């Protein structure tokens, strides 16, 4: 599904990612953990194609196709979805209108007709129930005045609507209380199948109680320094990152 080979990336001339290798297969859930400033969010942005970051070496491949030179929307059309850590506000654009545009633009890129209105409505109803989203919420302006929890739930709702192949959840747990966390995790688990993959980026192990990863990677100073199973997350929770830092320097 996703293959990252020796990825180096800069922001404003400063190297943040220093040779990342990652292989995510369909049906897998990978967690990427690490302390603040280790490059976790940069990795998410680079995969999604944010032009503030420059790839200096290596490549990002989705189902064998290199993404490096593709525009963000082209990546999205191919099935890359990023749940933003800080979703932006777009005043005056309702959640529904935004989603309609996103879905139809993606369909257009694939040479498909626009989704019929009744099908769209049915899908919106179905997915909003899954994420326990109130109807009124759908006619509000995108992310404007949303609480932290609402923003994150809205991100996962969009993911449910767009049905991506690869979903990257960037700090989706931050700002969520335990009930909202369960709803979001439940949503992600229900959407999970053998054809798609999820990369969970997080600082804490908390979310991983609910979205159980197959693999856990520790990112430190722009490199993956340790990989393991879900038990690695528990170990990190217990012992913090210091022992990894020591291990890495040795």
């Amino acid at each position: 599904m996703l293959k990252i080979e020796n990825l180096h990336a800069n922001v404003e001339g400063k190297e943040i990612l220093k040779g990342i290798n990652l292989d995510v297969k369909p049906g897998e859930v990978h967690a990427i953990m690490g302390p603040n400033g280790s490059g976790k969010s940069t990795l998410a942005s680079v995969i999604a194609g944010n032009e503030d970051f420059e790839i200096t070496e290596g490549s990002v491949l989705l189902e064998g196709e290199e993404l490096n030179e593709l525009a963000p929307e082209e990546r999205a059309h191919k099935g890359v979805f990023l749940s933003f850590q800080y979703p932006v506000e777009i005043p005056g654009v309702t959640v529904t209108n935004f989603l309609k545009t996103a879905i139809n633009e993606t369909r257009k890129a694939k040479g498909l007709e626009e989704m019929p209105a009744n099908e769209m409505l049915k899908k919106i109803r179905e997915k909003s129930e899954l994420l326990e989203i109130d109807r009124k919420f759908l006619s509000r302006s995108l992310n404007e005045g949303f609480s932290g929890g609402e923003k994150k739930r809205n991100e996962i709702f969009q993911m449910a609507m767009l049905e991506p192949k690869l979903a990257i959840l960037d700090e989706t747990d931050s700002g969520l209380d335990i009930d909202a966390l369960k709803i979001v995790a439940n949503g992600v688990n229900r959407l999970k199948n053998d054809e798609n993959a999820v990369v969970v980026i997080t600082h804490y192990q908390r979310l991983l109680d609910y979205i159980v990863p197959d693999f856990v990677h520790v990112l430190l100073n722009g490199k993956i320094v340790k990989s393991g199973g879900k038990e690695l997350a528990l170990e990190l929770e217990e012992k913090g990152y210091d022992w990894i830092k020591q291990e890495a320097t040795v």
Partner: protein
Amino acid sequence: MAYTEEELKKELETKEYEYGFYTDIESETFPVGLNEEIVKAISLKKGEPSWMTEWRLEAYRAWTEMEEPEWANVTYKKPDFQAISYYSAPKKKPQYDSLDEVDPELLDTFKKLGISLEEQKKLAGVAVDVVMDSVSVATTFKKTLAEKGIIFCSISEAIKEHPELVKKYIGSVVPKKDNFYAALNSAVFSDGSFCYIPKGVRCPMELSTYFRINQAGTGQFERTLVIADEGSYVSYLEGCTAPMRDENQLHAAVVELVALDDAEIKYSTVQNWFPGDKEGKGGVFNFVTKRGLCETNAKISWTQVETGSAVTWKYPSCILKGDNSVGEFYSIAVTNNYQQADTGTKMIHLGKNTKSTIISKGISAGRSQNSYRGLVQINSRAANARNFSQCDSLLMGNQCGAHTFPYIEAKNKTAQIEHEATTSKIGEDQIFYCNQRGIDTEKAIALIVNGFSKEVLNKLPMEFAVEAQKLLEISLEGSVG
């Protein structure tokens, strides 16, 4: 690679005026220039009664004493008023009962504009009074309206058929000496629309007029008069497109609205006259006086979407004379390339408990200058007057300007006035967010601009909202729409 801002800018610049075409209909045109003889000739040509001729002459004499206004934040080459022909009409003045009799070339023009008369008649329930180069050539739905006692015709016809109404109200809201362009219009107006809604009648359909400027070198001087008698309601739509022309064309219309006690007038405009090309060559000069008078409990609501014209100078206003009367102004003004717009409103509070709302959205791109100029005036006797104004500007690129000039004058202690203005740009993070969801930059901008303009778009009648959204996209995004 993603769509860069540079590419977008380039595309915006090269976007040609979609509706730039010219209908070759034989026209009868007066010699250029203006003097009392021309004014008399216009009046004679139209078979007007002598009181109308005299009225025009008074306006003309006043105009000769006046100077062109300079205060607006626009610069342009002043029109040579002696180089304009003040009358042009299709040679064969047609009287049609059905569209089949209409000049096929004219119908073809409307098709290009996307205005199908038949469709409009059948689907939208809109009666269309088409004004083609100053003279009304087709009027529809008259019968349905006549049953309710509603008069909807050309102003020339009204002068002849309903002189008592015209005499009473013409110049009552915009006096013939009001300003330079209003005086000029009063002297030489060629045609326009007239509408009267009798007491207690709710007009069953949206009334609509499409204006076009056609004949080369012909000034367009429309005159519109809408009277809503006590307790009546009317929604009036005005839409404009003009063919592409090299020389600047002058448009100086006057619109007067009279809302008597408990009446309501909703006046909506979509204006996309030729804005000039990407070098700023050509385009329409739009110097319009629009004003409405509200008697007790009356309401006038102006909604406008302005994407066209090279230079716009326009302030649809409300005189809130009666107690409890309400004035509203909702506006979207888009400028691109070298366009200049100085537009806004005046809310004059004279009566008690009067209320006004102003929502203005300005979008500037290219090398354009977009100004909001508004006046909120609370007279000393206007107890408990309320005003809320919000003026938001969106800038696209670093070659354009957005300006806000609100004038607030209060002479009553119970007045409550709130004015807010903001200036912003489209954030790169907003674009990236949209991109990540599969929406390309161009579409993302359209989406964000639509969101920005939403409060105003929502005020448009359905028939217009779609066209207005399309216009916004055309004016700003090139390929979309």
